[in-house]
């Protein structure tokens, strides 16, 4: 009938191939190690409405819990500090009752006038500040 068609069929049959045992084993081993891809809709299943509802309620409950716990603790008592006039240049006195260790000390006797004492203190402060800066510069 169709000579060309018959010849093409017959000549294709003349091509002799066999799947070797080695290739067969190779293919089988490869297939065992293959993880079939899942369709996109299976890979990322749509989350049901109940999931969103549950997660929203959980979030709201957690927020309320945090607010309640924070309010139960109550505000901390503020530390009242009474500051002295700046001209005194002394540390502020804490009026709150605090534990003060009993120390055997004597009050310093100021031999120089107050003005001179103030200048000395300022000078010491500058020196100390410079020393700290130098030390920081070295260490960093």
């Amino acid at each position, binding site marked *: 009938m169709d000579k*060309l068609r018959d010849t093409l*069929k017959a*000549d294709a049959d003349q091509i*002799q191939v066999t799947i070797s045992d080695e*290739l067969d084993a190779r293919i089988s081993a490869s*297939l065992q190690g293959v993880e079939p891809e899942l369709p996109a809709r*299976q890979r990322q299943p749509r989350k049901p409405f109940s999931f969103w509802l549950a997660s929203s309620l959980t979030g709201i409950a957690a927020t309320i819990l945090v607010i309640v716990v924070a309010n139960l603790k109550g505000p901390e008592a503020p530390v009242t500090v009474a500051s002295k006039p700046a001209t005194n240049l002394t540390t502020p006195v804490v009026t709150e009752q605090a534990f003060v260790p009993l120390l055997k000390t004597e009050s310093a006797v100021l031999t120089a006038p107050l003005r001179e004492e103030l200048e000395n203190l300022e000078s010491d402060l500058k020196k100390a500040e410079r020393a700290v800066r130098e030390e920081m510069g070295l260490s960093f």
Partner: protein
Amino acid sequence: MSDELDLIDAAKAGSVVAFTELVHDYRERLLRFLLTRCASFADAEDALQDTLINAYRYLHSYDSRWRFSTWLYRIAIRNAANLQADAGESPDELQDTEADPLLLCIALSERENLWVSARRVLRKEVYAAMWLRYVEDMSINDVAAVLDRSVSWTKVNLLRARKQLDAELARTEKESKAYG
């Protein structure tokens, strides 16, 4: 056919055994086809292995409106093309005759095998179209689908290829008679 669909369903569900049974009869046919497109027998075997692995991996994308063989050949052609691209060969590059895997697998006969002649005179894509049409008995639509070409392109090129191969067949028969 229903057996094939059952096997496909089972393989889609993850059964390697079902998939192995499904492709068992296609393996030699695919290897024979790949031999005509690869530079060596080893390449053809690698292409076959890759084809089956990819088919199993992406079986979920198989649409049962197509013939399974159509889908399988489509993957095989892509894998063979990828192998050629990796090896840096052009699609229509002539092969070294001594190492030609097709020639090594053809039994001796009085005249030249028409598929060897076909490879000489046809472009690879047209050669594949002829193979799918006349060896695999695929419809024109299926051939077009495998090659990712239009039906009209497939029809025209099959017709031209037939004319060329008719002429080749006449020539080789004449030669074999002359040497006969």
